[in-house]
């Protein structure tokens, strides 16, 4: 994660810089003694995480976050416990560290930020209907086009779905319910609470299951009539 520090006190910046060095996944790209300078920087650069002091002369950390159009994740580093409630009103506030910051507490905050990155950025699904034949998923901040006819199976995996295509599989943070609405009825059918299949890819059907590629997928009793209706039976 690329991060910056915004704190008017040099000692505080040096401490956070020292703590950052202990964490391999953190790349400290810049530090600012003034919130205004940080805003200018953020207008031209994209970063993942800000360590932000609240009590700064002239322009507080809380004023600062109100100016951000597309805020990255923020960890407050402050000596003021009284702002915690207000700070957590913002979704992008990851944690609230009280000075002097100890390494174990710092590590805990970074883990929270990383976890949030995984759920919000890395695996976040952003399905945009481009045509009837494809959609896009956001993986690692790249929008990847998936051709609908190549999908043969979508399976629920906890908070994620696994989209299996002829080429490869895509694990994205979403639900079957969310993706179901984006898929054409002519191709896809939910046959079980955990599975949506491409009916054109069915190889064979047994009583309570279908074979798609090498996957045997259960068919729930309530969905079986709809499945049978979709098939071109001789």
């Amino acid at each position, binding site marked *: 994660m690329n991060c910056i520090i915004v704190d008017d006190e040099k000692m505080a910046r040096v401490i956070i810089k020292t703590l950052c060095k202990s964490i391999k996944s953190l790349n400290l790209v810049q530090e600012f003694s003034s919130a205004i300078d940080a805003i200018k920087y953020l207008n031209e650069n994209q970063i993942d995480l800000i360590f932000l002091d609240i009590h700064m*002369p002239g322009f507080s950390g809380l004023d600062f976050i109100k100016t951000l159009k597309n805020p990255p994740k923020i960890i407050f580093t402050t000596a003021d416990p009284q702002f915690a409630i207000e700070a957590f009103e913002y979704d992008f506030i990851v944690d609230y560290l009280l*000075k002097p910051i100890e390494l174990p507490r710092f590590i805990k905050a970074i883990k929270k930020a990383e976890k949030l990155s995984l759920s919000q950025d890395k695996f976040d699904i952003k399905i945009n209907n481009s045509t009837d034949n494809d959609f896009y998923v956001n993986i690692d901040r790249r929008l990847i086009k998936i051709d609908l006819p190549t999908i043969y199976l979508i399976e629920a995996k906890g908070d994620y779905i696994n989209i299996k295509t002829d080429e490869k599989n895509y694990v994205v943070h979403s639900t079957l319910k969310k993706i179901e609405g984006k898929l054409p009825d002519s191709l896809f059918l939910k046959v079980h609470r955990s599975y949506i299949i491409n009916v054109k890819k069915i190889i064979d059907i047994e009583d309570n299951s279908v074979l798609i590629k090498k996957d045997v997928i259960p068919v729930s009793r309530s969905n079986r009539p709809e499945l049978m209706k979709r098939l071109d039976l001789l």
Partner: protein
Amino acid sequence: MEKPNLEYIEKLSRGNESIRNELINVIKTEFPNELKKYHISAKNIDFKQIEDNVHRIKHKFSILGLETSYETANNFEKSLREHRLDNAQKEYFENVLEVISEFLKTI
């Protein structure tokens, strides 16, 4: 009155001499400037400025392990926010500043 110590700095630097020296150098450079700014604001009885300076300085209290002094600085800051200049709090705070100034000469 409690005595300053380098426990936090030692813990943070984890035996790395250059990190330890950097932290000590920063505190030795930054503290006298903050002290000067505090005294100017106190002389001018500028509540907002005094409050800002007390806030910045109190972080040094906690870095130097002065837990009780940190709490009294918190109370002093709160009084200033309410535009009250409590002489007992001010005197205690300034005594701590002197103790720190003397301590920094020894490290």
